[in-house]
């Protein structure tokens, strides 16, 4: 293991500037506390094979689709299944859970939102995710940790951080909305990120009045979150979002917007921000709802 304690104080100090200074831990912190039993480490990735190839020692994996989503209905898992899921990973109600993953912590932020929905407040993201860990040349292992099952009791789902369809429709033009997809998806040129299959809604475009702030603008190249000052400039100064507003974040299927929800809620301190996990694949398929479309496809003569 590479010793990096010299930088720890400085990075922890930076993390302490965010609205919720307890929402993040540094890679230094994780490295220093590995194996001391003070937390449960869980990897959540877009690339679900990444864990198998190598992960931070002691980490378990969490599959964002197979384990967090209902296999039949389009919804996230219910309270009972969340209890079973965490209990099976040996997580108790009092445990500190540290989540990390690839791609700027994209899917670990999605899992973080679930933990908050079901009332597990003692949860943090590792700033920079597995990319920062790897770029720092730190240890990875293919060994899976031994897990002793625990009993977990979840709280009732906290719907104050989740926006559902009818609320979104009622708030078009009323509440600020942040569309965190790419500019091409926002204007209606693409239906999904350019590198992903174009699974999509019936219609392209965006919710009228939504601001477009691509989710990854909140991250630095090494996967860490931008500084408080930069985030304020991005969301508040450039887009005019106000902390006290009931802002709704959405993307295509609700994962990228979880990342922005995390930024607005935990780093900038917007107490009423919600994630609309139905997102564009739901809204853009609804009959009769208003849509703004800026991109016009050329029709061959």
């Amino acid at each position, binding site marked *: 293991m590479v010793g990096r304690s010299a930088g720890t104080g400085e990075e922890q100090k930076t993390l302490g500037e965010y609205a919720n200074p307890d929402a993040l831990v540094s890679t230094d912190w994780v490295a220093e506390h590995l194996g001391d039993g003070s937390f449960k480490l869980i990897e959540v990735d877009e690339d679900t094979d990444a864990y198998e190839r190598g992960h931070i020692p002691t980490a378990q994996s969490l599959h964002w689709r197979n384990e967090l989503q209902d296999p039949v209905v389009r919804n996230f898992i219910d309270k009972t299944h969340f209890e079973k899921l965490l209990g099976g990973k040996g997580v108790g109600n009092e445990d500190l859970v540290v989540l990390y993953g690839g791609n700027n912590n994209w899917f670990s932020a999605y899992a973080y939102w679930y933990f908050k929905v079901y009332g597990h407040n003692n949860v943090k993201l590792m700033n920079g995710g597995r990319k920062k860990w790897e770029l720092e040349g730190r240890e990875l292992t293919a060994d899976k940790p031994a897990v002793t099952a625990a009993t977990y009791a979840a709280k009732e789902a906290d719907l104050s951080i989740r926006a559902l369809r009818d609320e979104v429709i009622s708030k078009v033009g009323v509440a600020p909305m942040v569309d965190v997809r790419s500019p091409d998806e926002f204007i209606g040129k693409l239906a999904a990120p350019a590198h992903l299959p174009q699974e*999509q809604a019936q219609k392209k475009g965006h919710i009228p009045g939504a601001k477009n702030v691509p989710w990854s603008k909140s991250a630095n190249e090494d996967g860490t979150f931008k500084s408080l000052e930069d985030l304020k400039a991005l969301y508040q100064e450039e887009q005019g979002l106000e902390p006290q507003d009931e802002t709704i974040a959405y993307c295509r299927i609700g994962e990228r917007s979880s990342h922005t929800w995390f930024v607005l809620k935990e780093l900038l301190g917007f107490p009423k921000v919600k994630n609309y996990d139905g997102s564009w694949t739901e809204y853009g398929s609804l009959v009769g709802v208003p849509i703004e479309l800026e991109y016009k496809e050329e029709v061959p003569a």
Partner: protein
Amino acid sequence: MTSSCVDAPDDYVGETSIRGVVLRDGDPVEGAYVRLTGTQEEFVAEQRTPEDGAFRFWVVPGDWTVICLAPGAERLEQSASVAKGKAVDVKFELLPAGSAAG
């Protein structure tokens, strides 16, 4: 397009892509992070190279930037202009961290 469930623009078809390899002293590098950004410097996608050091991004035609980060190496960046139906090849030769200073 023939699939009823896919409705991408017509230019998002065929081989339109950026592909390449990350090398260190001529050998493929596993575990490099290759990132694709658009014209407004927005992040689009990222891949971690497997054993053969290769990466590939499917894109719409246009101008793109590809950035490579790897443990112990200098950050590298290249531009790629991709035409419809064409694959653009990009090769990254890693340099030891600090070697580009000055």
